[in-house]
C-alpha cells in the first residue's frame, strides 16, 4: 500500500503541560478530541482525565500536569481536522467539583513541535442570583456537552467568562499527506509560478536539468 496511499495519518504526541489559573487550586483536566466524520482514531486514547494538581508554591503559581497525549488519526479529508477540547475541573470551597474552564484548539497541521496556549472560559450564570445560588450549591453552569467549545454552533446563546490558560505542546508527525496532495509544510510548499520558473531555468541549462530530474523535490526546494 505504500505506493498508493488512500488515507493520510496524523500522529500526535504531546502533553498538557501547565496551566495558569490565578484563583483556583486542586485542578484536573479532561481532554478529548473532536474530529470530523472522515477521521478515525487508529490508536491512542480519544479521551483522558488527569490527576488533580495543586498550584505550585513559587511566584508563578503554575499547575503542572504534564499529561501525555498520544493519538493517531487516520483520515481521508482534512475537513474536520481534529480539535483538542480541554475542560478543567477543580474543587471549590465546599469541596464540590466544579468546572473551571473549557477550551479548544486545533491540532497543529504542520509536522513538528508546537506549543499552544489555550485560553479557558466557563459559561456564566444567567443572573446574579443564579450565580449566588450556584456558588452556594456548588453547581455552576456547565456545558451540556463540553464539545460545544469545539463547534461554532449554539455558542451565541451563551455568555462566558475567561478563566486562565492551559499550555499544550504537540509533536506532530504526518504521513502520506504530501502524496495525497496536501502540502502543509511551508518549506516545501511549491508555488506554481516559481516551479515553472525553475523548470524554465532547467530547460535553459541542460546539465542542471539532468541533475535535477531524478529527484522530484529539487525544483521546488530550489524555488523556495
Amino acid at each position: 500500500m505504500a505506493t498508493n496511499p488512500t488515507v493520510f495519518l496524523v500522529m500526535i504526541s504531546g502533553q498538557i503541560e501547565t496551566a495558569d489559573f490565578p484563583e483556583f487550586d486542586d485542578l484536573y483536566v479532561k481532554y478529548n478530541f473532536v474530529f470530523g466524520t472522515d477521521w478515525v482514531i487508529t490508536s491512542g486514547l480519544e479521551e483522558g482525565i488527569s490527576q488533580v494538581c495543586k498550584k505550585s508554591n513559587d511566584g508563578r503559581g503554575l499547575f503542572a500536569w504534564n499529561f501525555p497525549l498520544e493519538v493517531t488519526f487516520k483520515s481521508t479529508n482534512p475537513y474536520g481536522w481534529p480539535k483538542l477540547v480541554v475542560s478543567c475541573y477543580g474543587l471549590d470551597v465546599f469541596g464540590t467539583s466544579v468546572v473551571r474552564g473549557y477550551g479548544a484548539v486545533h491540532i497543529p497541521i504542520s509536522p513538528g513541535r508546537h506549543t499552544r496556549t489555550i485560553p479557558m472560559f466557563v459559561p456564566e450564570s444567567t443572573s446574579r442570583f443564579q450565580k449566588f445560588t450556584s456558588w452556594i450549591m456548588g453547581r455552576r453552569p456547565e456545558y451540556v456537552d463540553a464539545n460545544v467549545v469545539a463547534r461554532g454552533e449554539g455558542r451565541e446563546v451563551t455568555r462566558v467568562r475567561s478563566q486562565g490558560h492551559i499550555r499544550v505542546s504537540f509533536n506532530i508527525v504526518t504521513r502520506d499527506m504530501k502524496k495525497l496532495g496536501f502540502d502543509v509544510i511551508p518549506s516545501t510548499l511549491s508555488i506554481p509560478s516559481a516551479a515553472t520558473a525553475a523548470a524554465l531555468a532547467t530547460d535553459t541549462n541542460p546539465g542542471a536539468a539532468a541533475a535535477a530530474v531524478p529527484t522530484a523535490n529539487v525544483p521546488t526546494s530550489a524555488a523556495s
Partner: protein
Amino acid sequence: MSDGSGAGGSTFTRAMQKRRKDLRESMTDSTIEMSSQHDTIQQMLSADDGGVIDEMETIDPIEELQDAENLVEKLQNDREERRRELFQSLEPAEETDVKPIRQKRKPKATSRDIEEIPTIPETIVEAEEGRVKSSDKGAKPTPAKRKGKKSKEPMSMEDAIMSVKTGMVSEKAPGNLNASIRERIKKKMLQTKEKAEETMREEVEKDPDRDFPARKLRGMRARDTITRFDESTILTKEEIEEDKMLQESIAAKSRWKVAFKAVKAKTSHIPTSEEAYDFFTRNFDPEPEEPEKVAAGDQPGPSSPREEEAQPKSTRDEEEKKDEDKEEDETPLLSEHFLYQDDWKDHPSSMRSAEYMPWRYRQEAEKGYYFVPSTEYINVKEKGPAEAEPRYLEDEGFYVGVKPSVSQRNRNLMEHRLLNRDDKGSQWFGADGLIKALPDPLKDMPSRPRVVPNEEREPALQTVYKKAIVSEFDNWYIDGLGDELGGRYQLDVDVNTLIFTHHSLFSKEHVLASRLRQMYDQYLKRKQKDVAHYLTEKLKALRGAVKTLEEQLVNMRHADPDSSTVQEHQHRLQEYKYEIRQTRRLRDYELQHDRQLLLSIIKTWRDIKALREAEECTNTPVRLGVRKEESNKREDEAVWKADIEDEVSEMREEYEEDYQGEIERYKEALIEWKDYMKQKKANKRKKKQQGSRESLEVLTEANGNEEEEPLEEIPKPTKPSYSFNEDEAKQKTRENMCKIRRKPGEPMLTPELSNTAVITPTSDCSKAEQARRSDMLRCKCFVKVLFNNKEVSRTGTRSMTSDFTLHFGDIFNIQIMQWPESVKLQVFETGTLINTLLAEIFAVVPDTQVTQDKVQLESLDFGSDQRVTYEHSAVGSGYTFHLGSGDTSGEEMQLFTQGQLLASVSWGLAEDNTPLIPPSATHANANELGPLNHLDAVAAIGATGLVDPERLAKWVSEARLDPNDPANANLLHMMRDFQGEGGKILKQAAQFFRLEQLQEEFNFVSHEVLESSKRFRLISLREKEVPEFRNYKMVPLIEKEIPDTAFADYEKRKHMEEHGILEEDVDPHRAAVAKFLGKVRERVMARFRAAQHQYSLPDVVNEDQVPDVSMLSTIILRLIEPKRPLRPQRKERKTVTAQNLSGLQVNLLINIERAIEIPVRKSTGRQDGQSTSYGTVRPFVEVVFQQSIKQTSVAEGPNPNWNEELIVPFQAPNNDYSPSNLQGVKDVIYFNLFDEVLIDMLQDERDRATNIHQRMERRWLGSISMPFSTIYFQNRVSGTFRLNTPSVLLGYDRSPDSMSRIQGGNQTNATYISVFITIEPPLSPPEPLKEKFDSNEDEKLLSYAENYQTSLSVKFPKREVTTSVMDINGKSVFVTRYFRPIKPPAILIEDGNNSLKVAVSIIVSYTMWSEYEEPPFNTLHF
C-alpha cells in the same frame, strides 16, 4: 593556660615531688611522728587542697563541697578513733558518752568507714594535726595545741555526726548525667579558670592574705556548725568566738552557693570574671606556711602533678581515685578539643551530672540579677519627688495637653522600670506623678531640631526651588513645555440673553405669540432677501437673453446653417429655456411661500386675539399691526396679463417641443410597421408557392416558417394629434397665479409686530392664570459655562420675565492654558431641591480672527426633552394640549421646551488691544479650532456622506474649495470626472456590488470539476444531510475508490420521486398521494433539521434552576415527612449523559413483582404423585433481551409473588449512547411466563428408594413484549400488564377461585404480570423536540396559546393539550383550523328538537366553567 603559670606550675611540681621523696625517705626511716609532723601536715594539706582544687576545676562546686565535707568527716572519724584510744587509755568512763552516738552513726556511715579504713592509720595524726592547726589558724593563733584539742573534743564529735549526716545527704546527689552537658560545663569552667587564674595570681601576689575567707571556710569544714546537740554554755569563749567566725564563713558559703546557683541557672552564660574570681578565691585554700610557693603552685588546674602526687600517697579516698580513673578513660576524647594534643593533661575534667534547680529556687536565686518590672499600679506618692504632694495642674487651671494613649499596663511597666533606676526616674515623672508624655510648653529649647533656613545652610546643601513641570508631550496645553508659560490666552464668553421659544410655563397665548414672533422673524428675513423679486428679475433677464439668442440664431442660420456655432447657440438656447422653466418654478414656489407666511401670520394674530378675548386677559405684549398699501389696480392687471401671456407662450413652446418629439417617435414606429407589413405579405406569397410541393418538404418548410414567425404583430401606430388649448392653459396659469400672488387691486399688506400690548395685571386674571404667573415668578434660571468639560463659571440666577426672556449680560473672561476643545453652556432651571439641567449648548470655539471687539452675539438654539405638566393654565412641555378656540381652528399640539441663548465666544483682548490668541494655527489641534471646518468634508457631511458621490459633489460645489490648493486636487479631480460624466459612471459603479470579489480566484477547482467529481458530490450530499449519506464516514480521498454504485440508491429514489414511477399494483391515485406525502415529509424534515440546529441556553449550558417557592416548600416538606415511610417510593436518579457513560455497563433493571391469575394445571388422570393436588402451577418468568436470557426463581401457585430483580445487560448499537442513537434502538424485551413441571423419569420403581430421576419441563403459559424505546423514553415502566396468552392452553385451567371471580364479574380469561423496568445508569432521555416551526398565525395568538398550554400543563400534568399542529407545508397551525362543524347525530334530529336542546344544554359554555376551578373540557375552549 599562660606560659608563665605553666612554668610556675612545673616548678611547683618539681618542688613537691622532691618533698615527697624526702618524706618517703623519712617515713621509711621511721622517725618520730612529731618530727615529720610539720611536713606531713603540709603534704596532707596540699594533697587535700589539690583534691579540692581539682574538684573545683572539674566538677560541680556543690559536690565538691560535699566532698570536702566528706573529707572533714573522715578526718573527724580518724580523730575520734584516736581519741577513743586515748579515752580508753585515760578515762574509760567517758565511753558511755560516746557510744550511743557511735552506734547511731555507724549503720549510716559504715560503708564509708570501711572504705576509708585502710587509709586512716597513715593519715590520722597528720589529719588531726592539720585540722587543729588549720582551725587554730582560722580562729586565733595563740591557743595551746593539746589543750585546745582536748577541750574541743566533745564538740568535734558532734561535728562528726553532723558531717556524717551531711555526707549522707550529699551521697544522694545524682551521678548519672549527660556527658555532653558535662563537657560543656567543663569547657566553661576551664575558660573561667583560665581567666580567674590570672587575676587571682595577680591578686595573690599583691595581697597574700586575700584568701583569708577561704581559710575561714576551711575552719568551718573542720569545725562545722553548732548543732542542737550542742550546749552553748559548754562552749568556751574561744569557742564562741570561733563559732562566730564559723557562722560568718557559713553565711559566706551559703551566699556563695546562692550566687553560684544563679550563675548555674544561666548555663549559657560565661561567668563573669568577678564571679569566677570569687568562685576560686573562696574555695582556694592555699598553704599559709609557704605563701610564695603555694600561691604559684596552688593555681587551680594542673592536675598532673597532683596525680603524680596521688600515686605515691594513699591519702586519697577511693572514690576520688575512681573519678580520676574515669577521667583518664575519657581523656582521649577530650584531647581532641585542645589545640595541642597534650594540653588535655593540663585541663583535666570530670563528668558530673547536670544540675536541675526547681523553679522557685531559681527565681529566688535570680532575684538579684534580673529585674522583672511588675505591672502593678504604683501609688502616686512613690513616684513623685520625695515628700511632695502630687499636684494636678489641670485642677489648678493650667492647660494640660492630651497625652498619647498608652495602656495602663504598659504605663505601669514603664513606671516600674523608671523607678528602678538609680535616680528613681525623678525627672521622668511630672508633678502629678505621671510620666511626662508631652513636651513642656514653657521650655526654652525646642524639643525638635531646628530647621535651618535655606540661606544659612552651606552652599552645597542649599535647596533650589523649581516649579513643577508639565510633561512636554502633553499637547493639551497650548504652550506645551511647562517652563515657559509666557502666553496669556483668554476666551471671552458672553452669555447675554436666554429666550424661551417654548417653556413649560407658557400659556396658550404665549405659544401663539412665540409662533407669531417666529413667523414674523421669518417674514422679515424673507423680506430682506426678497428671493421672489430676485427670481422674477432673473426670469426677465433670461427671457431677454433667449430673445436675443433667438434673433442671433435666425441671423446665423441665414448665414451659415451648418456651422458649429449655430449648433452651440441652439444648445445654449435649450439650456436657457430649461433654466427659465426652473426659475419660474422656483419663483412660484417662493411667491407661494411668502403668501402662505403672510396668511398664517395674520391667522395666528387672529387666534391670539380670540384667545385674549376668551381668557379675558392679555399675557403677552405682542401686537400685530397690518399696514395696508393701496395698489394701482390697472397697473397690476397689466403686469398680471403680461405674466400670464409669457407663461402661456412658454407653455406652448414646451408643448410644441414635446409634440415634436412625439411626432418623431411616431414616424419611427410607422416605418417599422411598414417594414413588418411588407414582410408579412412576402411570407404569404411564399406560402402560396410552396403549397404545390411534396409533403415532406412542406413539413420541413413549415418548420422553417415557424422559425420566422416570432416576428411579432406590430400594431399600426396612431398619429399624435396636436391639441394645445390656449384657453385652458391661460385658465390654468390664472388659477395658479391667484393662489400664489396678490390679486390685482388687492392692497399690499405689511405686518408689523410690536410689543405694545398691555399685559393684564395678575389680580384681574383667572385663577389658573394667576397660579401660572406665580409659578413663573418662582422659576429661575442660570447658565453654567464649561470649558473643556470643566465648569469655569456660572451666571447668577435670574428670574423669568413675563415674555420668557432672561437677560444675563455676563461676560466671562476665561484665561486658558489648554487648547480649547469645547465651550459648553448649560442652562439650568433652579428647583426647590435640585437644579434641573434644561439643555446643553455647544458654543463654537472661535476662529483666530474672532476677537472680542469683532464678535457678534449668536443665537444658539437649544431644546430639552423634559416633560412637565401643570394643573394651571400653563401648557407644560412634552404633553399634548389643545390650542385654539376649540371649534374649527383648534389643533392638537405637543411642544417641548425650546429656546435660544444669545451668546458669543471670542478671543479676549489685552489692555493694549493685542488679541490673546494662541499662536499656532498649525498646531495639531488647529483644525479643531474651526476655521477649516467647512473645508473638511468629513466634518461637513459626515463620513457616510463620502460614500454618496452626489452629496459629496454637492458639498464640493457648496464649499467652493480652492482649486489651486494641492490638498484639494484629488477631490476636485474626482468631482470633475463626476460632473463631466453626468454622474452616470459613479452611479453605475455604486450599483455594482460584489460580496466576495475574489471568489472566482479562490475557487480551488472550477465549478464543473466540482460537479463532476464523485467525491465532492458525496461530500456535498452529506453536508445536505441527504438520508442516504447522512452518516457516511471516511469519504474516500481518491475518486477511484468511490464505487459507482454509491449514488445508485440515491438516484433511484430521486428518479422515483420525480417521475412517480411506482410498482404496478398501486393505483395511480394512491401513488400521487404517496408522492405528495413524500414531498411533505422531506420538507418537514428540512424544517425539523433547521429547528434542531437552533439552540437555546438550556440546550447548551447546564444550569441549576433558581430555587423558587415551590422547590423550597418541597424541601421543607421533606424535612417534615416521616423518615421511614411505610410505602417506600422509588427515588429519582440523576441521569447520565452519553459522554460520561463510556466504560460503564448499562443494564436494564427488571423487577418482576408478581403475577396474577396464572392458569393452573388441569388435574389429569395421570397423577404421578407430585401434582396430586388440584390446580398446582410452578411459574417463573423468563426475560429475553438482546442476547441475554434471565429468569426468576420458581414460585408456587397461580398468584405468585416473585419480587425479584433481574439485571439484563444492554448494549447500544455501535456502543453509541447518544440520545439520537438510542432513540433508534429497536430491541424488544420479551417476558415469557413458564410453568416448571417436574416429570418423573424413573423407570424402575425399585430404585425409587435410592434414586431420583426427574425431568424438568417448562411449559409456556404466556408472554408479553415491550420495546426498549418505551423504557428509554419513559425512563421507567412500572405497572401491571396483561400477558398474551393463547386462548386455549392445553392442560391448563383456571383455578377455581379465579373461575368464580370471572363468572362473578366480567373478568376475562387473562393473566397479569406486574413489572418495574428501568435503566441503570439512567440514560439521559431524548429531548422532546419542541416544534418550533414557522407559523402564519398571529404572534399574539401564538403566545397566548403557548401560555394557555403551559398553564394547563401545570394544572393537569397528565393531559395532552395541543394548540397547534403542523400542516403539510411544515408550518404550525392552530388546531382549531381543522375543526369543522359536525352534524349532530341523526337520532337527535329525528327525535325532534327536544333531545337536541338537551344535548346542547349539556355542553358547558366558557362562561359557565370559568366559574369552576377547572375547565371540564380542554378543547371546548376552541
